[in-house]
């Protein structure tokens, strides 16, 4: 039975206005679904409901906004359905752009910060270890929980904003310490450090872990390198696309897993022991197969290189700049980077944007090729270093994709056809 606080009851009765009452009524019904006995406070939210799909998502946003909805906690906004400044350069229809912009305005009117990014953890809105938050966006949920150690359930669109408006969430799931223990042990067996250092390794591993984890919290043991933040970002996005991973532990890497025991919160973790978790081995051959799955194109034709899912960070712009400096992309190949206003500005300020633009790259802000119908029909084959783009583009855009490293993407753009250095994956 759900016990509401006095403040919850006030919100439900409309003391804070009709929008808060509506949000609380949805939250109370969801608390029942989650089996919660009480609600708890959050101190931050990230809203994935910003993605415009059609009249229903727009009507929901505008209903809340017109009822006077205001967010009760600092709230960042995910990608929208349109790059307001750049959509006319692409195949976006005017009607779509207008409606997507209306949906953006609705969430801005609620007092959220217009970050328009799927990597809010790389903005000033980044939460801290142990912070209770309500986040939507599958990659961001996974990153916030696992890499930062903030605490969010896997919130869907339309519920994230209800949490933000009330500042409350059902006190269940990943908000509670006891529910954050690992449930599945994934051991890397003889995966050499040379392969772990490869640019594609963490994205490929994430793609595989998402498939293996089912509904469990996976614990990955056997990482011998120190991944950069953007590699853990790539892992999170991949695992939350091929699967439903909202929290993972990587022993010796992520904050709640300094040791194998800690990852399982001291519960028995010796494989085969009494009460031990499910345990699976990951071999180099498994990783090769996972990497092959991410490529759905078979030829060497290439129409576009696409980078930036999740949104390209300053560190990624900085890695890309020396790879493209003084060169030109092939005139037949588009080279597109999806990112946020903030990151583009920082890349400009630090001087790494200029060589990238001189190379012939285009930048789309606030959205991505999956959330905005921007690609013209003649774009049929893509190349990317993003496992998330590689996973979704074939279904959502009916394109074929080659997955490769950042350097492969650059070389292919220059050559005008797919070129990939597969050596690290052959000899491993």
């Amino acid at each position: 039975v759900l016990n509401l606080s006095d403040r919850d009851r006030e919100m439900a009765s409309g003391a804070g206005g009709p929008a808060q009452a509506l949000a609380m009524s949805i939250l109370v019904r969801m608390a029942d679904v989650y089996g919660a006995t009480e609600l708890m406070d959050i101190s931050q939210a990230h809203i994935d409901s910003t993605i415009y799909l059609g009249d229903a998502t727009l009507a929901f946003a505008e209903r809340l906004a017109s009822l006077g909805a205001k967010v009760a906690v600092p709230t960042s906004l995910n990608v929208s359905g349109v790059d307001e400044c750049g959509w006319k350069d692409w195949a976006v229809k005017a009607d779509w752009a207008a409606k997507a912009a209306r949906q953006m305005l609705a969430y801005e009117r609620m007092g959220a910060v217009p970050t328009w990014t799927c990597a809010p953890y790389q903005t000033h809105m980044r939460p801290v270890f142990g912070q209770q938050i309500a986040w939507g966006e599958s990659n961001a949920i996974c990153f916030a929980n696992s890499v930062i150690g903030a605490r969010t359930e896997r919130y869907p669109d339309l519920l994230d904003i209800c949490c933000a408006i009330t500042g409350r969430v059902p006190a269940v799931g990943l908000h509670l310490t006891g529910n954050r223990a690992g449930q599945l042990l994934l051991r890397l067996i003889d995966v050499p450090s040379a392969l772990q250092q490869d640019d594609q390794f963490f994205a490929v591993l994430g793609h595989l872990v998402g498939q293996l984890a089912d509904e469990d919290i996976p614990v990955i043991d056997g990482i011998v390198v120190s991944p950069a933040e953007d590699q853990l970002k790539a892992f999170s996005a991949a695992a939350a696309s091929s699967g439903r991973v909202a929290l993972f532990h990587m022993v010796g890497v992520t904050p709640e897993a300094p040791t194998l025991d800690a990852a399982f919160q001291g519960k028995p973790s010796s494989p085969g022991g009494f009460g031990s978790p499910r345990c699976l081995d990951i071999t180099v051959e498994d990783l090769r197969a996972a990497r092959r799955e991410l490529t759905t194109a078979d030829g060497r034709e290439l129409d576009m290189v696409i980078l930036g899912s999740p949104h390209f960070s300053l560190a990624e712009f900085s890695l890309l700049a020396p790879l493209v400096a003084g060169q030109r992309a092939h005139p037949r190949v588009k080279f597109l980077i999806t990112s946020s206003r903030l990151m583009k500005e920082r890349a400009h300020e630090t001087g790494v944007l200029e060589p990238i633009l001189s190379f012939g790259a285009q930048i789309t802000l606030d959205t991505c090729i999956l959330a905005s119908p921007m690609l013209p029909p003649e774009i049929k084959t893509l190349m990317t270093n993003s496992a998330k783009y590689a996973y979704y583009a074939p279904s959502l855009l009916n394109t074929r994709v080659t997955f490769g490293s950042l350097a492969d993407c650059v070389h292919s753009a220059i050559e005008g056809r797919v070129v990939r250095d597969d050596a690290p994956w052959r000899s491993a």
Partner: protein
Amino acid sequence: MIAGRVIVAGEAAGEALVTRDALSFWGGYDFHTGEIIDKHHPLAGVRAGGRILAVPFSKGSSTTTAVLLEAVRAGTAPAAILTTGADAFFALASIVADVMYGKPFPVIALEPNDFASLITGERLSVARDGTITRARPSLESLAPSR
């Protein structure tokens, strides 16, 4: 008859479409047509709109709920969704469909054995209390008509 656990109550009847593989509706379901479009999924290309979709749980994108809401508005949503656990994504989509359009769809959680017994193509009906009745052909209906 199968005794399911009501996650969101409602009534529905239709043909079962059963999969053992989780599904993201964003990138996995076309709400214009009611078709499953995830090319990694065994049901890619199959229409789920109007059918009783048995899928163990949601995966992938948070936008799964928004796609389902659009599908309810467009009349292309599954008639009901049967799962193995209380899936918050499917539940939320149904609850918001109720709030916005007065059209919730039943979401029912089944025991793993019951879920495993479902067969694509069989006719099912879902009652408000979560009971699922399998409309197996009766002896009478099999008897030659006079």
